[in-house]
């Protein structure tokens, strides 16, 4: 027989330090003493991410969440709640605090996530069209085809205030309206699934978890603007997403949800995949379009915008995966509903791939207007190993860093742009005291230099020059003049590059310079890397007073540059040392020092 209650004590990284174990043990003891051990199971969980208010205790099946529980509260929880069925009100988490972020008809829990784009991810079987149908799949398409005129669909998107989730933030309804207005026999719909930012995987997860939502939304767009063919441009390195999309397309065709006369309406629409070879620049819409046409993926100047002259010179609506996935919900729930979520200028939710030095990295979907602090410390469960927060990098190679001072600023398109970063497609990399900002800037410049298509000089030459300057600084060979040069070249690239890749490539360097100039100066003036990351500036040595001669470092050293007898002080031969840091990591006595 199943137990009546399950009491789950948060056992996440942060909680261990704050007597979560003591609370667990106290609850266990009370349960035994009050004789309910056959009705109640007390458990340690893997983590709840409530580290600000920890330890958290959740009682199932009623899902009561207690926060800030002390061992002394165990008696009350067992007596009142588990035996008498009355939760201990003073400890219950007040979910109403979150209510203002959510529309009225959405259940408000203790989580600050609201899953619209990811509504079906992790819920349905993506390979069964029945699962999608059971959760109102293709109901938005039916509504559009039979109950709405194309203008109504655009009006609904306008009310919703949906903006492009690929990073640009252009109002979706306007794109659609431009394409709709152009008279043309043939028009096209494109889904941009060329996700390329390092550390970003929102689109892949959405396609893998809910492929039909993209097909449905693209078909709605076809009906709205008068297009009969859609393409999904996806990188070949996403094989699972590709196979699930192909399966979904086959299922939809078989049922007549794609093809001729969809649902007996007289409207025809079909979708095909086009595989990209993984060039970052092909995420730029003009480069993507020329790549679909069979040419080398290089951008061309806009205007004309694809909405007016796109694929094969025909008017083309091109949106990102996340934008598409939100559209069926907007049509079913109404634009007004969607427009209630978010900030004045940025509506709805945003999916982020939260990675880096946080405890709970993951794919999250949050209402626009949430703060970085809520994302990192509540959803993300705080910083890994309790290290100090330094910055968050958003927008990938086109974005910038956001510092401690802005943790409480509500996130939307405008706010991030104001700080010198961008919303981007949703990569969010959290960095701590051990991350060097010069190194971060070098990493992204290396990426954009590699991915630059080479068509325009500002990006091709400017990017390489920027990389060389930052590389020089990271090796302790920089001068103050280099900083001025980085700023000048960056400005020139922003103004003169042909496409977004080149225009935004200087952002990581400019942004880290803006907020962490002192770190650059330390590399230049003191020849030191404060975070201990830039190898060329590091020296490893052994503190004689701490070394006990265990020989561990010597055995681990990959180049055998550590000498010393057992139980005698070891020494590192700095000339041979490759600064891999292995000795620093493995020493149990803190005897290896780095400066």
């Amino acid at each position, binding site marked *: 027989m*199943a*137990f009546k209650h*399950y009491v*789950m004590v948060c056992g996440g990284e942060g909680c261990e330090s704050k007597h979560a174990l003591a609370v667990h043990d106290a609850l266990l003891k009370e349960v035994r003493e009050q004789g309910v051990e056959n009705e109640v*199971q007390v*458990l*340690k*969980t*893997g*983590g*709840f991410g409530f580290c600000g208010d920890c330890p958290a205790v*959740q009682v*199932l*099946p009623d899902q009561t969440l207690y926060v800030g529980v002390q061992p002394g509260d165990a008696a009350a929880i067992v007596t009142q709640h588990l035996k008498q069925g009355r939760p201990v009100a003073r400890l219950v988490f007040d979910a109403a605090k979150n209510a203002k972020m959510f529309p009225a008809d959405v*259940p*408000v*829990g203790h*989580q600050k*996530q*609201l*899953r*619209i784009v990811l*509504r079906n*991810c*992790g*819920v*349905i*079987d*993506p*390979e069964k069209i*029945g*699962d999608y*149908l*059971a*959760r*109102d799949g*293709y109901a938005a398409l*039916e509504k559009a085809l*039979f109950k709405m005129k194309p203008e109504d669909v655009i009006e609904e998107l306008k009310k919703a205030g949906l903006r492009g989730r690929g990073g640009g933030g252009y109002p979706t309804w306007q794109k659609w309206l431009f394409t709709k207005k152009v008279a043309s026999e043939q028009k096209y719909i494109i889904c941009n699934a060329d996700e390329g930012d390092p550390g970003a*995987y929102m689109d*892949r*997860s959405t396609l*893998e*978890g*809910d492929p039909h939502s993209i097909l449905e939304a693209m078909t709605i767009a076809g009906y709205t603007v008068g297009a009969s063919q859609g393409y999904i441009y996806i990188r070949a390195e*996403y094989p*699972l997403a590709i196979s699930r999309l192909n399966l979904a397309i086959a299922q939809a065709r078989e*049922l*007549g949800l794609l*093809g001729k*006369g969809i*649902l*007996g309406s007289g409207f025809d629409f079909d979708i095909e995949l086009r595989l990209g070879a993984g060039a970052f620049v092909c995420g730029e819409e003009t480069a993507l379009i020329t790549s679909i046409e069979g040419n080398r993926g290089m951008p061309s100047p806009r205007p004309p915008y694809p909405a007016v002259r796109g694929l094969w010179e025909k008017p083309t609506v091109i949106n990102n995966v996340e934008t598409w996935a939100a559209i069926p*919900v907007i049509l079913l729930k109404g634009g007004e509903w969607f427009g209630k979520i978010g900030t004045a200028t940025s509506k709805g939710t945003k999916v982020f791939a939260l*990675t880096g030095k946080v405890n*709970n*990295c*993951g*794919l*999250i979907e949050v209402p626009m207007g949430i703060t970085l602090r809520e994302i990192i410390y509540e959803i993300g469960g705080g910083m890994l190993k309790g290290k100090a927060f330094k910055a968050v990098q958003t927008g990938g190679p086109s974005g910038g860093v956001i510092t401690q001072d802005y943790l409480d600023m509500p996130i939307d398109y405008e706010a991030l742009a104001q700080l010198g970063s961008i919303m981007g497609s949703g990569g969010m990399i959290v960095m701590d005291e051990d991350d060097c900002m010069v190194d971060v800037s070098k990493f992204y410049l290396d990426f954009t230099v590699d991915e630059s298509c080479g068509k325009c000089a500002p990006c091709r030459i400017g990017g390489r020059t920027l990389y060389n300057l930052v590389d020089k600084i990271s090796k302790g060979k920089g001068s103050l003049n280099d900083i001025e040069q980085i700023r000048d070249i960056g400005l020139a690239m922003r103004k003169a590059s042909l496409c977004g890749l080149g225009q935004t490539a200087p952002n990581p360097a400019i942004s880290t310079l803006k907020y962490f100039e002192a770190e650059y100066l330390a590399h230049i003036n003191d020849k030191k890397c404060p975070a201990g990351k830039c190898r060329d500036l590091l020296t490893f040595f052994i503190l004689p007073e701490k070394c006990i001669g265990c020989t561990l470092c010597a055995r681990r050293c990959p180049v055998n540059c550590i000498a010393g007898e057992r139980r005698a002080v070891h020494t590192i031969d700095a000339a041979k040392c490759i600064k891999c840091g292995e000795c620093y990591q493995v020493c149990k006595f803190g005897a290896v020092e780095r400066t």
Partner: protein
Amino acid sequence: MTKLNREGLAQLREQARAGWQQRWHGKQAQIIIGMGTCGIAAGARKAWDAFADELKKNNLTEVRIEQTGCMGLCYSEPTVEVRVPDMPPIIYGKVDAEVARRIVRKHIVGKLLINDHIYDRPALDAFGKQG
């Protein structure tokens, strides 16, 4: 299959809803494994095989194993949702083959939850009226 018209779609949706209802709230236990690229890379297929094998050993042929996409809990992959009738649905993380076997023996057979592997559902289902 013939092409659907609106009535056909409505019928198919009703069937699908009934099937969904049955699967999610019916009398059968269900193990739902996160099978996105991330989950598979972390070992979801090994967990799947272990579930299947352990179910067989315990003669639990009625328990279904289903796949789903990414649940978003990347730090705890592979993630698995376990739904047993009359028990609260539970999300387990870091489910390797050994944990998978323990889930079958302890949770599905013994009706007890498993320490250290329970994670919080990332968000309430805002669109789950039917299921």
